[in-house]
């Protein structure tokens, strides 16, 4: 299976049973349909998105799984953050509907041909899509919520924890 | 007669709720719990009566629980409590078994009217399930009733009750009794025939929109109604009762069996319950009818 694909595409083996294929966004549907016909990778188990704000791109990983659930193939597509738009995979994988809807809500990516891209988990959300990295979560929270006046000893305890751990280690070693 | 009827209703109310409390207790013991106090059902119903407000969907929603209550009370009043007693007979000399069988359907009807008027689809789903179940449920019970009526050549409950001095109908017509008893389990709304208000499937079924006093009336009528059904079974098959103590003993035995059966069986689906009722108890009762 994977040998067949390796003949046609530049497949990199990232880990045992994990392969990666990097493609252009305009060949996405073509390549994925070819993969699903010619190989055992028939299930789309996830679409993972990473926001590379430094490179001005979104990297979308379409993770395909074999029928036997023993190998994974990551098909990576990079698209511009500004005009982020991709063709939908609804015709190939019906389960892509929910995933694409989720990505649209969280990153603002438009999937051409998927007409279910309305409110999903966030109802009436009018801000920047929250998983884009330019969205400042803390500022948003401080603006929208009041915090309860809580414990007075609410301090940074990292240094204290470090000190105690070291102490504990010392005593253990001493024994 | 008026006081007599009032006493019948009061007794049915008290015993119905006590039995319901017992039901919760016995179920708790079956589960390995302690369960609530016996009077918990009273507390629940009083608390519901004392709610500050209850949601109302219009006059038909108001009338629904009242019709249910009428169904329960009229059914009760046409069934004599005691065998050969002048007291606690209600209006039984003006009615008969066929009338009682029909009055028993009034409660689902009132329920259906009240719930239909609130527009909640879950409620109507429950009602439809209930009416579908009724198709199967009434068949064995009717066959048993017909068998008894033909055997006694009368449709008078009092006559059927007093004719059992030599032996209870449950023993002289055992097949009819088995058929009627399985159907009775369904009438009591216990597992495996509790398809109507199945909370895992249809939210709360018919009771979805009932709140406050409406729900309290629904609970009270169900207590009265289940006692009326117990009473009918005792009168038809267990020879009635000479005294209140005997009545309580007989109804309690029947009730206990129903509760225990309900606790160990899983629920049928609606289609399954109708098919089961139409096949097994109906078949048994039909064989019993041939012997009559």
């Amino acid at each position, binding site marked *: 299976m994977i040998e067949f694909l390796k003949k046609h595409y530049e497949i990199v083996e990232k880990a045992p049973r994990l392969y990666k294929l990097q493609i252009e966004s305009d060949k996405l549907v073509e390549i994925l349909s070819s993969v699903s016909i010619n190989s055992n990778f028939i299930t789309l188990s996830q679409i993972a998105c990473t926001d590379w704000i430094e490179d001005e791109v979104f990297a979308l990983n379409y993770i395909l799984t074999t029928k036997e659930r023993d190998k994974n193939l990551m098909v990576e597509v990079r698209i511009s953050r500004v005009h982020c738009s991709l063709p939908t995979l609804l015709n190939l994988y019906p389960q892509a509907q929910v995933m694409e809807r989720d990505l649209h809500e969280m990153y603002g990516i438009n999937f051409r041909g998927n007409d279910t891209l309305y409110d999903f*988990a*966030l*109802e*009436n*959300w009018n801000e920047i899509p*929250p998983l884009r990295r330019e*969205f400042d*979560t*803390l500022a*948003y*929270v401080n603006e*929208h*919520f*009041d*915090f*309860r*006046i*809580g414990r007075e000893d609410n301090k940074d305890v990292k240094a204290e924890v470090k000190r105690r751990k070291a102490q504990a280690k010392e005593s253990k070693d001493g024994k | 007669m008026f006081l007599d009827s009032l006493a019948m209703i009061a007794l049915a109310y008290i015993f119905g709720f006590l039995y319901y409390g017992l039901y*919760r207790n016995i179920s*708790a013991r079956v*589960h*390995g*719990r*302690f*369960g*609530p*106090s016996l009077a*918990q059902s009273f*507390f*629940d119903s*009083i*608390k*519901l009566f*004392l*709610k*500050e*407000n*209850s*949601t*109302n969907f219009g006059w038909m929603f108001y009338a629904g629980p009242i019709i249910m209550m009428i169904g329960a009370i009229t059914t009760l009043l046409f069934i004599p409590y005691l065998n050969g007693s002048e007291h606690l007979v209600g209006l039984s000399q003006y009615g008969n078994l066929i009338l009682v069988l029909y009055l028993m359907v009034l409660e689902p009807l009132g329920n259906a009217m009240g719930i239909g008027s609130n527009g909640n689809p879950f409620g109507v789903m429950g009602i439809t399930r209930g009416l579908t179940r009724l198709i199967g449920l009434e068949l064995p019970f009717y066959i048993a009733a017909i068998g008894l009526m033909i055997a006694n050549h009368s449709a008078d409950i009092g006559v059927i009750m007093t004719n059992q001095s030599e032996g209870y109908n449950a023993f002289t017509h055992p097949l009819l009794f088995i058929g009627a008893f399985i159907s009775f389990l369904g009438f009591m709304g216990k597992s495996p025939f509790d398809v109507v208000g199945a*909370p895992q499937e249809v*939210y*709360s079924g018919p*009771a*979805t*929109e*009932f*709140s*406050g006093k409406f*729900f309290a009336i629904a609970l009270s009528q169900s207590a009265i109604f289940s006692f009326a059904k117990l009473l009918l079974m005792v009168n038809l098959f267990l020879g009635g009762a000479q005294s209140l103590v005997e009545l309580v003993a007989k109804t309690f035995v029947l009730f206990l069996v129903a509760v225990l059966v309900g606790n160990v069986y899983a629920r049928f689906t609606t289609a399954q319950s109708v098919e089961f009722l139409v096949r097994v108890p109906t078949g048994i009762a039909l064989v019993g009818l041939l012997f009559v």
Partner: protein
Amino acid sequence: MPENTQEGFIDQQKVLDNEEYSIKNTQSIIQKAVDWFRARSMFVLAYGTGCGAIEMPPIFTSRYDIERLGVVGVATPRQADILIVSGYCSYKTLKRVIRSYEQMNEPKYVIGLGSCTINGGMYWDSYNTIKKLDEYLPVDMYINGCMPRPEALIEGFVKLQDNIRNAKSEAGYIQYRENNAFYRANQEKIFGKNTTPTFEENFAGMNQ
């Protein structure tokens, strides 16, 4: 009575601990009896909002058996007396929680289960999880912990029954009715307008 302010939560706790704030003495005998029945029979709408939902089923099992206290679960808000908000509430969930609360009939009580309902808990910097439940709904009993054990929940029930029976403070639903503008404003702050049917519409019939 202290105002339901920023510090309202802390102040109410003080009230509950202090006998002299109790409104028990002003009540008639009938009202006391009524309160007794209300405390004795509680129908719970267990709204499983977050991870706390998994702590609720055990209290009905044979190990904890909360039915002893007269607590029963119901499926529909119409019959419920108590709403348990079990854990974090996102915007979407909170909308449903408020809707369910408004469909409940008075008297009604709210139990906030877990730290998330008190101060956001581990979701304190989440963009769509509310931090203080009592800004949006009147909470009668908080049970802290992440997650609280079923024993804690039972203790909460017992305390709440005690509060109702002894009328230690004004119940939350009365605050909700009287300070509705406050709650409504907070709800609108995160939902925008017209996202749930308004309280006034639902209970306009009260005065008829």
